[in-house]
């Protein structure tokens, strides 16, 4: 892993009206690493990803992606990134293959057809390729969505909850694709609700809570934050879930739970 910083955020603040979502987020993502951003529903993960991918302007603070400032050089940032948003953004009227070809053409690549066929194969969509995306299951749509993001090999990739709604097999396919990317030197910032996903994939984990990154480190570092288990006769590693819950408190499933 190189020590270069692919994503650097400093003091990012963002409010929607009176609702302060981000209150000074600092984050560094080393080039070629995978960082998982954890946080409860509504913590602001999507907001942060949208700011870093130039879709949203921060109220305060600065961020650079691949060395370019998101505020002053958004076009350069866009050339360096690719985003898979939280909700699949595919064109349902087009076939899976046409979706891929379209993105390849918009990225001005030479052989859009070959690129599309290759990605269809990588994401087990070859058979579905000639069918309209409207006929796809949720998981197939998600895989197509992620495949569209890989076109053009951008050095930095944002994945907002890439595996939500996928079956275990499809999840593993996505994980493998993400690991491949990192092996190839791509920097990945992904958000997830699944702690095991963060454990599986991420070199480092950042926890977003009450508008700031409350912890950022490797899984081992985060696990050390918990006091060792007191009962001696059961040898048990704290899971990331326990670390997460102890840091953010019990998940506030307020309205529904009572």
């Amino acid at each position: 892993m190189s020590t270069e910083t692919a994503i650097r955020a400093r003091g990012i603040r963002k409010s929607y009206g009176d609702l302060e979502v981000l209150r000074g987020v600092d984050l560094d993502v080393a080039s070629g690493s995978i960082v998982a951003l954890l946080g409860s529903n509504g913590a602001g993960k999507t907001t942060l990803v949208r700011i870093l991918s130039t879709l949203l302007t921060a109220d305060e603070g600065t961020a650079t992606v691949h060395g370019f400032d998101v505020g002053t050089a958004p076009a350069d940032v866009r050339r360096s990134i690719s985003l898979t948003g939280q909700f699949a953004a595919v064109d349902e009227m087009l076939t899976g293959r046409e979706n891929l070809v379209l993105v390849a053409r918009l990225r001005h690549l030479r052989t859009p057809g070959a690129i599309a066929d290759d990605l269809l194969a990588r994401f087990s969509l070859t058979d579905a390729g000639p069918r309209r995306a409207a006929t796809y299951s949720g998981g197939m749509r998600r895989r197509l969505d992620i495949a569209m993001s890989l076109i053009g090999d951008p050095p930095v990739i944002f994945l907002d909850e890439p595996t939500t709604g996928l079956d275990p097999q499809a999840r593993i396919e996505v994980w493998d694709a993400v690991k491949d990317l990192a092996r190839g030197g791509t920097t990945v910032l992904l958000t997830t609700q699944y702690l095991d996903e963060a454990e599986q994939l991420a070199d480092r984990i950042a926890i977003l809570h009450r508008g700031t990154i409350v912890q950022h480190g490797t899984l081992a570092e985060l696990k050390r934050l918990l006091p060792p288990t007191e009962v001696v006769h059961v040898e048990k590693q704290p899971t990331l879930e326990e670390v997460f819950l102890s840091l953010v408190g019990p998940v506030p499933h307020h309205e529904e739970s009572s």
Partner: protein
Amino acid sequence: MTAYALADTRALTGRSLRHILRSPDTVVTTAITPIALMLLFVYVLGGAIDTGSGGSYVDYLLPGILLVTIASGVAYTSYRLFLDLKGGIVERFRSMPIARSSVLWAHVLTSVVANLASVAVVVAVALAMGFRTGASVGAWLAVVGILALFTLALTWLAVIAGLSAKSVDGASAFSYPLIFLPFVSSAFVPTDSMPGPMAWFAEHQPVTSIVDTLRALFAGQPVGGGIWVALGWLVGILVLGHVLAVATYRKRIG
């Protein structure tokens, strides 16, 4: 803008033209209401209308019907734009290094193609109903040019509506007044048959000058100074609509 703006617009226009090809019903639906109006006016009301022109009523009527076709057809453009915004595909395009303007231009160009296709359907029906024209090739080109300009002008208004709409219905509701305008113009009856204030409005609103110009072109008559009034309106609405649409896009999308 980027050197790729044209290539991007071409790729995105290809995409939305595919949408049209895969839902040809939108082209047909656009043509149905104007065709029904044409049948109604020609076969039911036409006998009682004195245009004072001597020609057949369908010849008199067609230019206005074509404008009604386009005015209702552009609603599909707002609709498609609204769905794109809602479906998140616009977000995807925005996070990519593509020329921002190409997203709008693709919808606008597609609108011109789709509306001219609907217009062709309506003209075919009119021909079957006895519409005849002695227009030269040059006059036909002028007719197509004016209709394309009219489509462009209304499409930019449709873009504003699609960008600002909160619901699917809201996205297309803006076209109702546009469809209504030809009724208060020289499209169906001569303006001098209307009461004073109404006649004044009809004579000074854009549709009348456009309809009169199209009618003269179809009839192979000189268009006179009216064409400049028509072009003035068209270019004026086009420029204003474009400026407002781009401003709305910036505000909504950044």
